[in-house]
């Protein structure tokens, strides 16, 4: 067994209530490593095409990586994969926190779950022992209550719990999974897959440290990075402002997504800035496992009619915008309350905000009326209405039932041209970064295997100038020349091919994007050295980039099997139009023809057919995926 791994992959069949342990050979680990690459291996081998995502046949896979749980900084993350009930494509979401490291210490490199239990259950894994326990008494409970009950009944305060709330149980198609009440596998509706299996939670507890090849070296690099984190302005910005630090530049420039993307200009933007946040609702900050950055916000509100419990963390940038300006809401206290509700119910805050904003626009355009909304005045800016709608979605009541299926489904049902008010890629609502000021983000929205996502690559702004951190620190990948954030030419396409693969490697290895270049201080060389010192493998960035590329091709083939084509690699129409209002008024439209050329070039750079976007047999052979060639010959 290679260092860094436990050598054990846990398989659980909830239908038969059986479990068994697989001990893969070293070549398996060195080919698929962990995270999404490992998960896709099982999804492609064990799932039939066109499996209903909410059926027992969908696999639900929890996978940290070989370096998860080492003491090195900012490596706490783990992946959950399944076929997504929101998109119908490969579904994937990474979360930080403490659960991933604890699973490794409990003796497992991954959990592969199939089947469905007839009654609610939870998995309890402690130091290699696995139990399927009754969860009937937990079903219907919110996340805070569930955590409290499980900790009491197991008499262990050190357990780590990944779980779903009522939205997951009720199969809301953008329900997520949470660990420790505030670290989310968000997006893609993986919480609904967990709900369909009647799996309320996975509780882990482990006491065995990860076996490292060179513990002293890992410790030395940890000290070096940690020391630099304290002084580095980017890391300090994350610690002191958190991700809400993105609000001010976006609002002042007029590209803060507002009023369901009808404008980037939000007059009350000052109310949402990190500075206002810090002065009004911030209680403190928290860190994930072994992370010195401490970017996580904790908020508390204690007002007679509005209370927010700090146990649920605090809104990130995406949430501040998706439950704020995108719904025309500028009251941070209500946004914090909405965030708390989403966290208790386990609903993705981006999709929740986007479906509510969509409904608000439909209401204002008279496509929905008070009868449809159950008497709610669902206008932009109505913060009480937003809170009510969140609850209705989680429990699938009235209009909430329709919205719980995602904006694509809801628009089709509403008809009357409502589809022009949705903004999505592959069925997933777009995040809160505007590609008109960062075209590479747009490329990633379009090409992401799991629908629009803002964490598919580092953003364009880190590569805009010769002095930019991305240009200075990523020469090992051949990133040598700056490209303007709004350029959509050949150099941008080539750059984002590399950045896509680079951050895919991060996802596979459970690396936090905020810990290493270009977003923070850990260097590429240091990360490589951590991997080498953990595993004993003399790996290189060449091997790691091939690993990333391998998983991208596996996901591409999974989606091809499900019927996705190049027509699904698109951007919402709004980005082909100029900004309306604010400092960028009349500017910004991405040229559609240029964008389509960029997508085609990206296919070619990836070794995919330029017309269809399907990986070529030669590319699959290069990546050791010859076992998938028959899939592309169909």
């Amino acid at each position, binding site marked *: 067994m290679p260092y860094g791994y436990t050598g054990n992959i846990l398989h659980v069949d909830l239908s038969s209530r059986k479990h068994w342990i697989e001990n893969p050979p070293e070549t398996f680990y060195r080919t698929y490593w962990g995270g999404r690459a490992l998960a896709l291996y099982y999804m492609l081998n064990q799932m039939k095409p066109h499996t209903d995502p909410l059926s027992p046949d969908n696999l639900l896979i929890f996978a940290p990586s070989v370096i998860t749980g080492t003491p090195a900084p900012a490596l706490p993350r783990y992946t959950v994969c399944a076929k997504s009930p929101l998109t119908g494509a490969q579904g994937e979401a990474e979360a930080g926190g403490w659960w991933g490291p604890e699973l490794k210490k409990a003796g497992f490199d991954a959990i592969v779950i199939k089947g469905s239990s007839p009654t609610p259950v939870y998995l309890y894994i402690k130091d290699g022992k696995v139990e399927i326990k009754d969860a009937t008494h937990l079903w219907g409970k919110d996340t805070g209550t569930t955590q409290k009950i499980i900790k009491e009944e197991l008499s262990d305060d050190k357990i780590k719990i990944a779980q779903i709330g009522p939205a997951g149980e009720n199969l809301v198609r953008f329900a997520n999974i949470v660990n420790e009440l505030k670290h989310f596998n968000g997006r893609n509706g993986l919480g609904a897959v967990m709900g369909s299996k009647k799996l309320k939670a996975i509780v882990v507890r482990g006491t065995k440290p990860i076996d490292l090849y060179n513990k002293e070296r890992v410790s030395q690099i940890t000290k070096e990075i940690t020391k630099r984190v304290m002084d580095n302005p*980017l890391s300090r*910005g994350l610690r*002191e402002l958190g991700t809400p*630090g993105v609000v001010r*530049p976006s609002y002042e420039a007029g590209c803060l997504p507002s009023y369901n993307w009808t404008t980037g200009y939000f007059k009350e933007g000052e109310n949402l800035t990190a500075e206002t946040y810090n002065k009004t609702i911030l209680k403190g900050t928290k860190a994930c496992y072994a992370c010195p950055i401490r970017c996580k916000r904790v908020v508390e509100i204690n007002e007679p009619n509005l209370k927010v419990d700090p146990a649920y963390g605090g809104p990130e940038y995406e949430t501040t915008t998706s439950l704020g300006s995108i719904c025309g809401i500028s009251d941070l206290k209500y946004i914090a309350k909405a965030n708390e509700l989403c966290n208790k119910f386990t609903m993705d805050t981006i999709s929740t905000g986007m479906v509510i904003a969509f409904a608000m626009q439909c209401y204002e355009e008279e496509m929905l009326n008070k009868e449809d909304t159950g008497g709610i005045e669902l206008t932009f800016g109505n913060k009480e209405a937003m809170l009510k709608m969140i609850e209705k979605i989680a429990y699938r009541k009235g209009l909430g039932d329709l919205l719980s299926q995602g904006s694509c489904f809801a628009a089709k049902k509403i008809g009357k041209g409502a589809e022009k008010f949705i903004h999505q890629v592959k069925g997933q609502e777009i995040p809160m970064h505007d590609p008109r000021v960062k075209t590479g983000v747009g490329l990633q929205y379009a090409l992401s295997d799991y629908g629009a996502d*803002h964490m598919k690559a580092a*953003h364009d*702004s880190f590569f805009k100038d010769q*002095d930019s951190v991305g240009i200075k620190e990523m020469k090992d990948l051949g990133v040598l020349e700056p490209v303007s954030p709004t350029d959509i030419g050949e150099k941008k396409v080539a750059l984002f091919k590399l950045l896509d693969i680079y951050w895919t490697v991060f996802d596979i290895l459970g690396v936090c994007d*905020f810990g290493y270049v270009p977003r923070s201080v850990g260097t590429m060389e240091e990360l490589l050295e951590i991997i080498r010192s953990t595993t004993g493998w003399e790996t290189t960035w060449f091997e790691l980039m091939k690993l990333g590329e391998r998983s991208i091709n596996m996901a591409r083939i999974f989606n091809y099997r499900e019927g996705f084509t190049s027509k699904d690699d698109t951007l919402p129409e709004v980005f082909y139009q100029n900004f309306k209002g604010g400092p960028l008024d009349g500017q910004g439209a991405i040229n559609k023809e240029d964008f389509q050329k960029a997508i085609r070039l990206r296919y070619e750079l990836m070794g995919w057919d330029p017309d269809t976007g399907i990986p070529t047999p030669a590319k699959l052979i290069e990546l050791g995926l010859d076992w998938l060639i028959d899939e592309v010959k169909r």
Partner: protein
Amino acid sequence: MKISIKLEGYLKYKYPSDILELNYSEPVTVYKILKDAKISLGDVFFIKTGDKIVKEDYLFTESAEVKLFPIIGGG
């Protein structure tokens, strides 16, 4: 003419002061102002003066306040 520079976001932590003032006797570009203030273009995403977002080649002909916003990424 006086050009007042206000640094936002993490730029406040990178440079010694979050407000800088420079004096010029003739029109000056943003590029030259940043160079004189020893602020790296690689750190700056948006440059705002008044209600306008401007590029590095924007020419100031009278006193003004310039806000500099840092590069931003996902999160």
